């Protein structure tokens, strides 16, 4: 069983009468890459800011390492953040930005950070006298040299060696992000929060960085809580994804689960493209939609219950008319690189289909779908 590192317990926050975060519960494990995914205004950033300590929750608890940290100041929490626009200190150069955390920690905190006993024995070893008295000045000097080493080590980790004395405004967006990352990692946080850190990067750089971040998380064994509105990014990097909307967690699961088995219309629409239609669960493993009955696998609803049916565009098969269960008239076909995106009218509904072969606009095509590709969701009452 993995160890729980953070627990959000019935956490709520209200701004101007709006429940930005609405009583959420969430457990985050050690050494996990968790992504909070949702449209802007869904409460993901507020959740992150509550974990970091910048926003005080109205209700509920944040528990880190089995202790309630609601009242703990941001600087004392074992949490560091990579900010959206990096928030690098413009008056400091790269190396000073990176070592900022260690340079300015409270004394006792710093002493523990480098392990007090270790410091003493190191200094004594250098003096070759294991009983020698060690003055505070010596400790400070020792710590200072360790900080410099650490800063260099972390800069190397983010591949920015040789940039030590650059000013931060002379760096490119990607380099600034690496500095922001190094600046957070030097503190060896248990939890690293990343608030849409790639929003300002261009596509190619973003893809490289996604890979690198994932690697880094695996290597360092730190829990990453990553915030994004980009579902592709979430899919690529995460161990688990939390889909949020209107302050409520919609679904929590591995990328695969969320993609293949969305629990409601919002998730199905937000993650990837999907065709959603209303259907009726007939009997075990039989569902009717679009005036046809289909075989389905693995869902249990009561007979004659209304359900939402999700079929991903790539799960439709274009088949010869005689083998088809459904027929549609093609309204458009666009080449997308690997596949064609075909729109077809089927039973007065527009259907999106990904196919490997082109079809001409106006043609009638036959469609079929495998039983295990049909996904059923409970109809939400408020709709």
């Amino acid at each position: 069983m993995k160890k729980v590192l953070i627990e959000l317990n019935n956490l709520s926050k209200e701004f101007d009468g709006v429940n930005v975060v609405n009583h959420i519960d969430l457990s985050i494990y050690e050494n996990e890459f968790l992504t909070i995914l949702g449209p802007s205004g869904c409460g993901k950033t507020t959740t992150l800011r509550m974990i970091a300590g910048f926003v005080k929750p109205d209700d509920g608890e944040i528990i880190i390492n089995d202790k309630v940290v609601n009242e703990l100041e941001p600087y004392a929490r074992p949490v560091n953040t990579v900010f959206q626009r990096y928030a690098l200190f413009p008056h400091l150069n790269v190396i000073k930005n990176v070592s900022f955390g260690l340079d300015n920690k409270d004394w006792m905190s710093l002493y523990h950070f480098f392990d007090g006993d270790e410091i003493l024995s190191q200094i004594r070893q250098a003096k070759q006298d294991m009983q020698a008295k060690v003055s505070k000045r010596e400790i400070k000097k020792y710590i200072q040299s360790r900080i410099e080493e650490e800063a260099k080590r972390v800069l190397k980790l983010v591949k920015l060696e040789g940039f030590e004395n650059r000013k931060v405004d002379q760096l490119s967006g990607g380099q600034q992000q690496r500095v922001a990352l190094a600046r957070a990692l030097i503190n060896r946080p248990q939890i690293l929060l990343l608030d849409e850190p790639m929003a300002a990067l261009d596509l190619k750089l973003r893809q490289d960085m996604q890979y690198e971040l994932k690697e880094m998380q695996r290597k360092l064994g730190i829990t990453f809580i990553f915030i994004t509105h980009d579902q592709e990014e979430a899919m690529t990097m995460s161990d688990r994804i939390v889909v949020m909307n209107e302050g409520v967690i919609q679904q929590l699961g591995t990328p695969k689960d969320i993609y293949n088995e969305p629990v409601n219309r919002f998730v199905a629409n937000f993650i990837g493209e999907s065709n959603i239609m209303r259907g009726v669960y007939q009997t075990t493993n039989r569902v009717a939609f679009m005036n046809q009955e289909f075989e389905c696998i693995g869902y249990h609803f009561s007979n004659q219950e209304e359900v939402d049916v999700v079929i991903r565009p790539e799960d439709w098969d274009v088949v010869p008319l005689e083998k088809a269960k459904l027929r549609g008239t093609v309204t458009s076909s666009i080449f997308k690189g690997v596949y064609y995106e075909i729109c077809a009218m089927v039973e007065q509904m527009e259907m999106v289909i990904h196919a490997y072969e082109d079809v001409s606009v106006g043609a009638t095509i036959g469609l079929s779908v495998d039983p295990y590709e049909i996904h059923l969701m409970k109809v939400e009452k408020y709709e």
Partner: protein
Amino acid sequence: MRKDTPKISSISGKEIATMSAYGYKDYTILKKVLKILGWCVVISVAIMLYLSIFVIFIYSINSNKSVNEFGEVTLKWYKEIWTHRMLRTSIINTFAVSLVATLLSTIFGTLIAIGIYSAAKKKQKWMMLLNNIPLLNADIVTGISLMLIFSLLLRIFPYIFGFPTLIIAHVYFTLPYVILNVLPKLREMDPNLIDAALDLGVKPKKAIWKVVVPAVKSGILSGVLMAFTMSFDDFVISYFTTGNGFDNLSIWIYGSIGRKDLTPAVYAFNSLVIFGAMAILLSVNAVRRKNLKRSRKS
């Protein structure tokens, strides 16, 4: 070291984290004390800024002409503003100079700001450096400098000292305020805006009036406000550059203080100005807030 029994959260029954466990001291009390002290300073500063104005107001309703003894409450000095000939003249002069100078500064300052903004980087820097001179220069040096220039002009224009010199002087030291208020707004403006207007066939002069001015009008407004304030309040520069018995309020007051025959009517006028300014500024503020709220809602 004192060993605290850990506090337990009432909701989950879990232990509450303490600052000291993470090697940090708890500064909550110190922070509160500093906050109170800080606000004490802010309040005393407010008193410092407004003490003299309050005293002047008391003088203005004091029936006793002495500034050290209070008689009874009266409004007679407010009536005397209009009857005291010298005072009335100097008030009219002050308003005439400030209004004309502010108007000129606003128009030219906006155009100059557009010019500086369009100039090359290097020229911009040089102009901004020069622009700082009237702003940061000591009033006495500015006053003397201008007086020297005007003295040289005296041979060509024998009657220059007075209203014309005051206008030039006031435009000189208020222009930088307008420029410095408008320039940042120009920099915030979409740089393609003016090209788009020209592209659509609008003539350059019209483009400035129809496109640039509306985009920077908040900067112009604060520029007007500052320029008028500085011009209205000026003493030293006016003192050196006026002549021909053309006294503005400051100069007249300086003379009266020297002669020790200051009429309390001037306190009344001063208080009226403060009330008027307060009313204007607060209503501008109220309008701004309303607009802000409306734009936030939509």
